[in-house]
């Protein structure tokens, strides 16, 4: 085990490079994990029990139109929309500028906290509550439309967006985003440069393919927030871009049943939502890190840099290549598992529908599980570090300013107690599980003619969801490898440098 310990010790400073601060949550205790998994199983049976007698009727969605209420009319006024778009563009510019010219210290700079905590976490959860408002305030889209006032044909597209490309651009960008979060250098400057490059890419692609096609399929945040926004009890039916012309109240999560994934790439995107969070949860844990250092390392050590005294240093890089490869491969591993269960559903129901059609039909019912995975992993970060944005707003560059008199507010992170965090985590996962099982059943009733066939189709999917939930809970219960795992036998007892 010495090589493992030594190499881990060497890589410690690099391992700390998480774009956000390291979460302070403890592994969920085994008893709570067992309780959660049992709860998931039990909950599944209750939901199935409910559906056994359900008849496959058409949508009996109840909605309340809010468009006429004075609050919505005020919020959806062109003035408010224009102002929120200006604010959105100003915030994007502020993140880039503070990152470039502000302090290098990540928590002292507005950009890191705003981008990784407020936008990536806070805004994600807000969208799940109030709907996809991102498409109204998307800063890149807003800039495109401002330019179009001068040159109306600028973003109409030069070539039509290839249908086969689907959501692959967004998927690739999503992979890049998670890579940056987990392995990228956590300095504000890097984030700014990435955002500049991303802005250039968005404008170039909107110019090439037309803004509507690009912002629907290619712009990562647009796809990400749209999927999570479908869960919201508020729905926006826009007449045109940026125009929230109809606002309706609906039951939470039913929005996911109103659409269907139209392309493999959207299925992969949803699976990456699941797998990237699972990967983030697992990639720092003892069993995972051990796979490389105990099983792969001895094999690699016989073929790479043999005889080189700095072999460990060389192989530390391979540890990262392995981690990156697993991150990129993770949605494909999930895809294989998902398709296997879909194929089982096809066999058990003897349906004439193909595996592809079934796979796409049930894609969006996985979104709630992906969402609760995200919440369980990151909500503590939002609570502990989110409030710091109030202080950072007064001193965005970290120069010691106090623009609004809020400097120093919430400077101490607010932390929830471990057992509160555990119970919330297990509770969230169970909630997501129940919703996903429910949604999958609703989908099944749409596809299959008899409720018996629908129920049959759900047995494999139920197994899949119990598996996903149990994996999610299990990951939460794994011991975390610290910055370094140093074993006592690795210490040279004879060295006494200070005596």
């Amino acid at each position, binding site marked *: 085990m010495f090589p493992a310990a030594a190499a881990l*010790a*060497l890589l*410690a*400073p690099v*391992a*700390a490079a998480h774009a956000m601060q*390291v*979460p*302070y*949550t*403890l*592994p*969920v*205790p*085994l*008893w709570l994990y*067992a*309780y959660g998994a*049992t*709860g998931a199983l*039990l*909950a599944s049976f*209750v*939901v199935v*029990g*409910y559906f056994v007698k359900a008849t496959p009727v058409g949508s009996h969605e109840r909605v309340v139109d809010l468009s006429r209420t004075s609050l919505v009319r005020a919020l959806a006024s062109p003035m408010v929309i224009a102002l929120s778009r200006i604010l959105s563009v100003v915030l994007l510019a502020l993140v880039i500028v503070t990152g470039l010219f502000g302090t290098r210290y990540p928590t002292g700079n507005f950009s890191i906290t705003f981008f990784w905590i407020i936008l990536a976490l806070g805004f994600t959860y807000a969208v799940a509550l109030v709907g996809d408002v991102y498409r109204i305030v998307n800063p890149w889209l807003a800039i495109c439309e401002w330019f179009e006032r001068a040159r109306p044909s600028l973003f109409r597209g030069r070539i039509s967006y290839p249908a086969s490309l689907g959501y692959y651009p967004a998927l690739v960008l999503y992979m890049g985003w998670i890579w940056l979060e987990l392995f990228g250098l956590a300095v504000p400057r890097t984030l700014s440069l990435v955002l500049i490059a991303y802005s250039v890419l968005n404008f170039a692609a909107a110019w090439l393919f037309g803004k509507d096609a690009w912002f629907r399929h290619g712009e990562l945040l647009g796809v990400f927030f749209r999927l999570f926004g479908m869960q919201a009890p508020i729905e926006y039916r826009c007449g045109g871009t940026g125009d929230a012309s109809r606002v309706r109240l609906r039951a939470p999560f039913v929005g996911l049943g109103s659409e269907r994934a139209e392309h493999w790439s959207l299925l992969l995107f949803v699976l990456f939502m699941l797998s990237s969070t699972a990967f983030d949860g697992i990639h720092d844990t*003892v*069993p995972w890190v*051990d796979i490389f250092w105990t099983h792969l390392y001895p094999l690699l050590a016989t073929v790479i840099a043999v005889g080189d005294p700095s072999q460990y240093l060389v192989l530390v890089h391979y540890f990262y290549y392995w981690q990156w490869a697993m991150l990129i491969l993770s949605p494909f591993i999930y895809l294989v598992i998902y398709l296997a269960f879909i194929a089982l559903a096809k066999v058990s129901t003897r349906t004439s529908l193909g595996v592809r059609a079934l796979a796409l039909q049930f894609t969006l019912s996985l979104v709630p599980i992906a969402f609760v995975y995200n919440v369980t992993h990151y909500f503590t970060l939002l609570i502990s570090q989110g409030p710091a944005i109030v202080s950072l707003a007064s001193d965005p560059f970290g120069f010691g300013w106090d623009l609004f008199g809020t400097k120093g507010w919430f400077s*101490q*992170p607010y*932390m929830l*107690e*471990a*057992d509160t*965090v555990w119970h919330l985590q297990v509770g969230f996962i*169970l909630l997501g599980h*129940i919703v996903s099982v429910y949604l999958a059943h609703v989908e099944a009733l749409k596809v299959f003619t008899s409720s018996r066939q629908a129920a049959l189709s759900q047995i494999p999917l139920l197994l899949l969801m119990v598996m996903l939930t149990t994996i999610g809970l299990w990951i939460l*219960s*794994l*011991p*975390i*490898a*610290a*910055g*370094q*795992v*140093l*074993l*006592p036998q690795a*210490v040279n*007892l004879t*060295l*006494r*440098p*200070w*005596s």
Partner: protein
Amino acid sequence: MKLLAYLVTLIAALGVLFVLFKPSPSTAPTTALNTASAVSAASPVSPDAPAGPGEAKPAAAVETPATAQPEAQASAVKTFALIVRGGRLASGPSVIQVREGDRVRVELTTDTSDELHVHGYDLRLKTRPGELVSLNFVAKRTGRFGLELHRAELDLGALEVYPR
């Protein structure tokens, strides 16, 4: 309405299960610590044994601070000796595991001048080359908190405080 009835039944059933399976407070921390056994095996935390080999002081010899309370469990100070050499942790546990309310003493020796920072608790301890310095505190807040040597930008490990 029927769905509501099912949900109420479900929540009630989960509540009953929770009451049945929730371990008593005395057993919970043990289970919790067992889940982290892969790490704790590598990091002996017993207050009766030297926390690290070599020159680390035996923990049993450590004096308890003047504010020591006579109660049996709470008054025992859990001591951890860490030695940092050549930019890495040379001896001592990389994960310090204690329970809520424990009195903790971290003894630290480094080969350079530096500052230890316990995140979350926001405790700081200045070190000088070769000199043993110690940090005493009560683990009031539960969770997992990073231990960092600021000047060396070295992630030493973590303090894990489990609920009682």
